[in-house]
């Protein structure tokens, strides 16, 4: 089979352009979708705890965990694995704490989840601090 490398080179150039444009848009949006849902659920868990509604807190935590787990593998394709592992650890320990009813420790863990999620969001932001 003979390959015309000039044509292959032009074709690969345009495939690369399309791939790069998609890589600028898709991963960032996907990540932001996940972090927004995680932050939202974490805040709702926090509110439920403040109102003393342990059942609602557990429900929100389970939704948060489900949201994270459903997207984790895809996000691993383009995001630092260590940070995702850290987030997973925090979510698992929060789930344990909400089941055990340890509100104070749970609030600390929820804050950790929110701060990791906010940091993950900023990594894909187009700003000078990320370029530097």
């Amino acid at each position: 089979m003979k390959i015309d490398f000039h044509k292959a080179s032009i074709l690969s150039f345009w495939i690369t352009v399309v791939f790069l444009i998609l890589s600028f848009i898709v991963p960032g949006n996907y990540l932001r979708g996940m972090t927004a849902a995680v932050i939202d659920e974490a805040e709702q868990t926090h509110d439920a705890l403040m109102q003393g509604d342990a059942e609602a807190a557990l429900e929100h935590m389970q939704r948060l965990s489900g949201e994270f787990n459903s997207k984790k593998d895809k996000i691993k394709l383009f995001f630092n694995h260590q940070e995702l592992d850290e987030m997973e650890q925090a979510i698992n320990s929060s789930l344990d704490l909400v089941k055990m009813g340890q509100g104070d420790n749970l609030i600390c863990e929820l804050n950790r989840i929110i701060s990791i999620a906010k940091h993950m969001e900023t990594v894909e932001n187009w700003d000078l601090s990320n370029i530097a």
Partner: protein
Amino acid sequence: MFILFFRAVILYLLVFAVIRLSGKRELTDLQPFDLVFTLLVADLASVPASDSAIPMLYGVVPILALFLLQQAFAYLSLKFEGFRHVVCGRPVVMIAKGIVQERALRESRYTVNDLMEQLRGKDAFEISDVEYAILETNGELSVMLRAGKQTLTFEGASVPVQDAEIPYMLIQDGKVHDDVLRKSGYDKRWLSARLKEAGMKDAGEVLFALLCSGRIHIQAKERAGSKAVILEVCKSK
């Protein structure tokens, strides 16, 4: 561990494809933008290949970005002379009519020793033997010797010679190259007649058969006695 192996395979294939598609310039004559590309690509691929905590895309996206830039630079330098001069520079005449150009040496950050070293690499051991020396944009020094020091050619000596012909590898490792045979203007019948003439049963016994300048050089494989035969080929096909 299999993950690391698999990632290395993917990155190897990607880097191989990118370098292959960038053209052969990378391997032989590196312009500055080619050099930057080649240096960076290898480094970018090595990080995600050895650390499974880093996503593959962290290596893939920068490699593709460099590929894009390299292709764009190569295209622009091909199309626009001004751009080519900016990114590749211009050839610099270092010796003109036997005189070393001091300003050119200074501008190219060359010492006389550097120049002598390059000249020796071109078999010119004395500056006085050189008529012109030009520093090309890829860093190579092209040397034109004085008329009296140039190699005598057949044309210079007015000796009649046959036109050079491209060599045709008709058989390699027992396999007949049909397309080469066709290009050479002969056919399989002619080839098997030559093999019989050389005392070989078929192409399977032949290590190589090379047709060049009206002669066919056939060598048998070791198991067929490693016999080498050179046959004159009739020019009328």
